[in-house]
């Protein structure tokens, strides 16, 4: 993954000479790999468990490629399912990480600045997961090169999917560059050169908005799917992204503080929970607004919503999911109302977990699947993911957590100054 970084040419890389020898970016990456594979028994156990889950999923995916996507429970009626649901949600998590970048760089929040690398690593892991979910959804992954600009036939700018390929990979590269560069400089004990990362940080802010906007456009541009064909979809995506991203990061920060000895003040938690307080309400208001439009006007365009909330023609597979989502999100919103919630870790963690689950359902199964039910010919064919789909999905989550773990394992000691070029 890191070979894609063009930062070998960074002037900082060439300029750093310590102990009489040049410590280049390539050597730094090797050093990081060594750091990433050394750890406590708990770390090994965690990584082995994730690897095992990942490999089980890889195997299942291999079977899916070999024997066909009949292994999934998708159909010509519900042609996208759990994979694309998770993809959509993870784009949100990736975009949501920008809620650390904005205070850290735009408003020069010192405490947030010290932790922003965590958000960026979360974004990187999330984007890798997105790419994974798209790949396992392909019927012919062997033909991936047809999608590569110049080699294949890239239907840009017509197809929103080509935009998504560009913005997701672009966002990945920007974040890899910023994280890699800042860590490298920190490792060398040098002051990062503003021009080598500040423009990219600003770019990443715009880009974070773009990845989720483009992903929403992927769906809302389809006139044949009334459930998606709403101008509110992109704003709704952003609002929910700015809940799920911070929710994940807050929990991660609290874990890092409790178990990894990362020390920081309460400022970042306060900022993130304050953001969530607002965005979760905006998100709920937008859902309510959609629900009102569908149900008050009625008609065939409301059929998907009717299916989602109450079931249609006696078919109710999504009804428990959606009410769970609404319930957890509302409870999370109420918990976040608690004054100084950032100082009450249990309440905050519960709120974040509930919000995360709620939005995972709302942005995933609750957003992707009902657009296909009823189908464009108004047939009601239901969808519940198959065991293979769950295995592959779990595998990509494990893969994302592996990247996140390794990223943090390397980044936290360097960023906190515990691991530097001196400490060899």
């Amino acid at each position, binding site marked *: 993954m890191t070979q894609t970084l063009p930062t070998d040419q960074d002037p900082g890389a060439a300029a750093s000479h310590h102990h009489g020898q040049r410590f280049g970016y390539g050597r730094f990456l090797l050093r990081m790999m060594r750091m990433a594979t050394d750890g406590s028994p708990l770390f090994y156990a965690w990584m082995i468990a994730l690897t095992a889950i990942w490999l089980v999923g890889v195997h299942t995916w291999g079977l899916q490629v070999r024997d066909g996507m009949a292994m999934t429970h998708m159909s010509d*009626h519900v042609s996208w399912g759990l994979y694309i649901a998770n993809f959509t949600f993870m784009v949100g998590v990736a975009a949501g990480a920008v809620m650390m970048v904005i205070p850290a760089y735009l408003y020069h929040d010192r405490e947030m600045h010290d932790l922003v690398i965590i958000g960026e690593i979360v974004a990187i892991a999330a984007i890798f997961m997105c790419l994974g979910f798209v790949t396992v959804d392909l019927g012919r992954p062997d033909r991936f090169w047809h999608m590569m600009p110049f080699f294949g036939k890239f239907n840009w700018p017509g197809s929103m999917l080509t935009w998504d390929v560009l913005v997701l990979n672009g966002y990945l590269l920007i974040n890899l560059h910023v994280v890699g560069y800042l860590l490298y400089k920190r490792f060398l004990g040098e002051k990062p050169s503003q021009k080598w990362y500040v423009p990219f940080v600003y770019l990443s802010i715009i880009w974070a908005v773009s990845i989720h906007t483009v992903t929403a456009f992927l769906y809302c541009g389809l006139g044949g799917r009334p459930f998606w064909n709403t101008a509110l979809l992109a704003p709704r995506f952003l609002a929910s992204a700015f809940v799920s991203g911070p929710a994940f990061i807050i929990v991660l920060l609290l874990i890092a503080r409790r178990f990894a000895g990362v020390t920081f003040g309460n400022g970042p938690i306060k900022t993130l929970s304050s953001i969530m307080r607002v965005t979760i309400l905006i998100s709920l208001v937008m859902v309510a607004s959609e629900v009102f439009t569908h149900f008050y006007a009625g008609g065939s365009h409301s059929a998907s919503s009717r299916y989602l909330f109450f079931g249609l023609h006696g078919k109710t597979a999504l009804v428990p999911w959606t009410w769970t989502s609404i319930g957890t999100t509302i409870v999370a919103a109420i918990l976040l109302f608690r004054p100084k919630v950032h100082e009450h870790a249990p309440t905050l963690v519960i709120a974040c977990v509930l919000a995360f689950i709620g939005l995972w359902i709302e942005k995933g199964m609750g957003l992707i699947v009902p657009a296909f039910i009823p189908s464009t010919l108004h*047939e009601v064919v239901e969808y*519940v993911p198959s065991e293979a789909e769950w295995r592959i999905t779990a595998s990509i989550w494990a893969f994302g957590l592996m990247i996140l773990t390794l990223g943090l394992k390397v980044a936290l000691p360097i960023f906190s100054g515990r691991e530097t070029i001196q400490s060899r």
Partner: protein
Amino acid sequence: MRAVGIGAIAVLMAFALRSAALSGPEQEQASPVTASDDLPAKVGRVIIRRPKSRPAITIGTDPKTGEPVTANCSTCHSNRVSDRTTNSADQLDEFHQGMAMAHGGSTCVTCHDAAADSLRLADGRLLPYEDSMQLCGQCHGPQLRDWRHGAHGGMAGYWDLTKGDRIRNHCTVCHDPHAPAIEQVMPAPPPNDRFLNSSAGNQDHD
């Protein structure tokens, strides 16, 4: 697939043939392209599956061969005058028994001149059986117009007459003249898509 298609046509043809008293086997006849034969490039013919020129009625079976014995209409009707009011086989004592008659208020003589072994137009002119479309068109003008423009009645072969022939159905291929409404048939099997009709997750159709 063609077997099925032709099978379906055969089913419908069976309706037309059901009353053996009046219908004979179909025969194919070529007729020139009418609407567009001025276009030079068109070489294909439009072949219309017309009815046979003259039907016959079964009057009994040959005791030796077991073959049905048939007679022309005029064999009896040259001296038995058709009752102008008869509009159902039930009203007859002999012959034509069991024939379904469900065609508006028509009586036998609305269309037939049995003594002349011929069809009969409303103005009394006689009309050969193979031209029966003209007779049908007296009442069913819109259908005849649509048929002439290729918008009524099944067909097969070439849409592009510069490349080959087209075979067209005649009224009586699909419609029994005595009971012209299309009868119910059992449809071909429905689709068997993944999870169509299963409650999700409970069943794996693979």
